[in-house]
């Protein structure tokens, strides 16, 4: 049984008492501690900047050419905070409640409560940095609504909220780089974690321009390396998103929690062909003003303007009258799949539903819609060649976010002491389904406000600079990394890494996507090893490993996906219930909603690696619901 080390006391006081109990480190000593932060997205950049401000020596790593290009840059819709600026009844407790319920009662209460508490400080911090949030005429901040909530608590910067928040954090990071507290290593990929006497003490990296492998030692290591959505090949994630850092840490002993909790987002532009390299999200914020519908009749091929109102099925409004088009993502996605499975989908292959703005345009005028969503409408028009002001958008669900990640305790430390995990890379706050606008909130809460405290309280017990990079674990790690690169380069087969990645994606989407069954999962578990075997026989990586080689980077990430996918499916198989985004067809209510099994599965599953070819061990962390009563989720 895993222990999350949650402080005692009433939920509202836990974080304050944690902070009170942690002893500050003498400023002169802070400089002696070296902290490695892998990843410079919202979580990593905010953490590194804040640690630098406190006086720690920090090194940051990212695989892009600049910290500013981390995938957080692509977040569109907004960030939640319990400010209650709208006076519509929001509060820390309500945000806490919505997030626990939205996560289908599979997240840890204490973490989520802290997240809700810290949410208000995030907005203050970002505004002070000069993040240009949307404003009202009075000069105050504007808000909008997101799925799974009845209050308006989402702060936004047009459709580029992630970009603006990340540039704020990047600015804070740059300030520390200039001050000399942070050293930045762009185009440098973490290849392995160095664990010495059970503690995380460094990383092995590859310089992506020269191929040089190097060990970086530190007093603790922070992973903020994002999610693993591209294990499905097609997703709304950037094409470089990967599982390498977290998976390799897992192979070094860190537990991987709930890998089967993956989020399929309801509103993405449908796939246009086999050439597709990624799918594009149309922000959930669009559902504030867009109405989702399909024809009432199966196989109705008339153009949408010829389908009279009475022959349209606004299925979300019909099935979930109180939340309507703002039903949470997992529910909206499944509803879309259902109507398409019934033969009522629209567009090529019948895999699409309409997202229609004509009512809002009539009611509010095109200008208002442009001001709210202009860039999203433009993006849609560029990709599809259609004008969404005139014809409804066509959308379909796509893989978007991964709630699973490395297991962490209340202090965001994994079971390996000295290894901290932040942002999308950890598992903690979103349970089985993440609500919109809450990943940005979590990444920044983790980085700005939680980690600086918890790292300090860990380092209080650590002697700085104790390990040298001549340790056997370090030289061994360098050798292993070198060997695995040589192995990839020497196959010289006939297919690109993408070829295998696409094959894997097909299996994952069909057998472990929006609906899963015991049989489909068993099928996936027998197919994945075959693709992996084929990969190692037949992958081709041209060029040299001592040079800038994007194919090598890709091959090494695909190799990890090919192993990790099995863990994901195994977790999905063993979780014999439906919850949030994990929908097992065998476990559903009469009206087709996810049916949880609280008696047997009200726990986190955390997997321990046991060696290649061995079945990993499934550990459990029981989830206690002391502040919110377990209930069947209803959005009706």
């Amino acid at each position: 049984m895993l222990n999350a080390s949650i402080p005692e006391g009433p939920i509202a006081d836990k974080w304050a008492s944690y902070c009170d109990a942690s002893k500050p480190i003498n400023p002169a000593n802070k400089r002696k501690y070296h902290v490695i932060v892998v990843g410079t997205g919202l979580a990593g950049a905010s953490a590194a900047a804040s640690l630098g401000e406190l006086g720690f020596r920090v090194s940051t790593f990212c695989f892009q050419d600049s910290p500013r290009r981390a995938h957080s840059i692509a977040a569109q819709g907004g960030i939640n905070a319990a400010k209650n600026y709208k006076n519509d009844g929001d509060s820390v407790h309500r945000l806490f409640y919505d997030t626990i319920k939205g996560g289908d009662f599979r997240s840890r209460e204490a973490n989520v409560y802290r997240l809700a508490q810290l949410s208000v400080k995030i907005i203050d911090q970002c505004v002070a940095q000069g993040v240009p949030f949307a404003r009202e005429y009075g000069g105050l901040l504007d808000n909008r609504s997101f799925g799974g909530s009845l209050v308006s608590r989402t702060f936004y910067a047009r459709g580029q909220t992630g970009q603006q928040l990340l540039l704020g954090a990047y600015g804070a990071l740059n300030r520390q780089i200039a001050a000399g507290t942070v050293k930045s290593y762009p185009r440098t990929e973490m290849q392995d974690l160095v664990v010495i006497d059970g503690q995380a003490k460094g990383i092995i990296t590859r310089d992506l321009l020269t191929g040089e492998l190097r060990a970086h030692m530190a007093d603790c290591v922070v992973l903020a390396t994002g999610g693993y959505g591209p294990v499905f090949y097609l997703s709304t994630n950037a094409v470089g998103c990967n599982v390498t850092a977290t998976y390799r840490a897992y192979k070094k002993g860190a537990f991987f929690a709930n890998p089967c909790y993956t989020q399929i987002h309801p509103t993405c532009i449908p796939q246009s062909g086999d050439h597709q390299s990624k799918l594009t999200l149309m922000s959930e914020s669009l559902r504030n003003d867009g109405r989702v519908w399909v024809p009432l009749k199966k196989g109705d091929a008339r153009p949408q303007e010829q389908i009279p109102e009475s022959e349209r099925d606004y299925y979300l409004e019909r099935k979930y009258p109180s939340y309507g088009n703002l039903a949470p993502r997992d529910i909206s996605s499944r509803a879309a799949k259902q109507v398409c499975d019934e033969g009522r989908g629209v567009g090529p292959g019948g895999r699409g539903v309409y997202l229609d703005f004509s009512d809002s345009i009539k009611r509010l005028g095109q200008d208002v819609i442009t001001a709210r969503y202009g860039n999203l409408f433009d993006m849609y028009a560029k990709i599809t060649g259609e004008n969404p002001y005139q014809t409804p958008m066509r959308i379909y669900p796509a893989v978007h976010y991964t709630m699973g990640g490395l297991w962490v305790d209340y202090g965001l430390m994994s079971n390996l002491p000295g290894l901290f995990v932040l942002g999308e890379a950890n598992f903690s706050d979103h349970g089985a389904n993440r609500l919109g606008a809450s990943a940005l909130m979590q990444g920044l809460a983790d980085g700005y406000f939680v980690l600086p405290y918890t790292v300090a309280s860990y380092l209080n017990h650590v002697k700085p600079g104790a390990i040298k990079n001549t340790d056997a674990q370090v030289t061994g790690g360098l050798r292993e990394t070198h060997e695995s690169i040589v192995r990839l380069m020497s196959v010289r087969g006939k297919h690109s890494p993408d070829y295998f990645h696409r094959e894997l994606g097909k299996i994952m989407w069909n057998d472990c996507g929006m609906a899963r069954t015991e049989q489909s999962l068993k099928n996936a578990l027998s197919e994945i090893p075959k693709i992996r075997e084929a990969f190692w026989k037949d992958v081709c990586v041209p060029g040299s490993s001592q040079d800038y080689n994007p194919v090598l980077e890709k091959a090494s990430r695909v190799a990890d996906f090919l192993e990790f996918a099995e863990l994901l499916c195994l977790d999905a198989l063993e979780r014999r219930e439906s919850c949030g985004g994990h929908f097992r067809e065998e476990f559903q209510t009469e009206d087709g909603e996810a049916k949880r099994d609280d008696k047997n599965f009200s726990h986190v599953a955390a997997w321990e690696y046991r060696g290649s070819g061995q079945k990993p061990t499934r550990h459990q962390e029981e989830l206690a619901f002391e502040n919110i009563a377990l209930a069947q989720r209803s959005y009706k």
Partner: protein
Amino acid sequence: MSLLNLKLRVWRQKNGTSKGAFVNYDAPNISPDMSFLEMLDVVNEKLITQNQEPIAFESDCREGICGACSMVINGIPHGKERGTTACQLHMRHFKNGETIVIEPWRARAFPLIKDLVVDRTAFDRIQQAGGFVSVNTGSAPDAHAILVHKDNAEKAFDAAACIGCGACVAACKNASAMLFVGSKISQLAHLPQGDPERKRRAKAMVMQMDAEGFGSCTNTLECEAVCPKEISTRVIAELNWEFMRS
């Protein structure tokens, strides 16, 4: 729409010290729904299966926001569609049989790494020189303590939309980075939060820009024309004003 058969003339160069040259490729059966980068993916996939090094180019988000993709297409950074990055440019804008010329950004301050990939870390160093508000974590007042006029917030946003791709530099005959630097200066000049450090910021960023070897601005406005976020040269005028005041 039917499939396109295209010819590519692509700049190939092993690294910054070797000599580069154009190489011709066929790109047959291209779907008009593909993005420009997906078209290159198809060409590359074929090269890889022949154990040849694919055309190196950068991309990540593939939705026009990260600023990674960077290539000159038929003489224009990101191609001729206005307000569009290469990753958002779709093949329906090309004609069957057309020859497409693809080159890297060319500027002294952006040394070439390989093929279409250049080193843009000069942009990071300019931001490090002063592109921020000096506020430590945890020290901020309540967000509503600072009122911002809606028009100012909008102007700040228009400038802040910069994705740091470098097309402005690539388009400019002087390889000037004024649009890039101006966008950060303008963002913070329109916000009360940026006020206390405005003089220091303008001076430091301009000095770093010069030190990196970017050229000066002679108002040819090519930068505005190619900017995928359509940032206006208003920000350059504002940068000049802020710099003069500093």
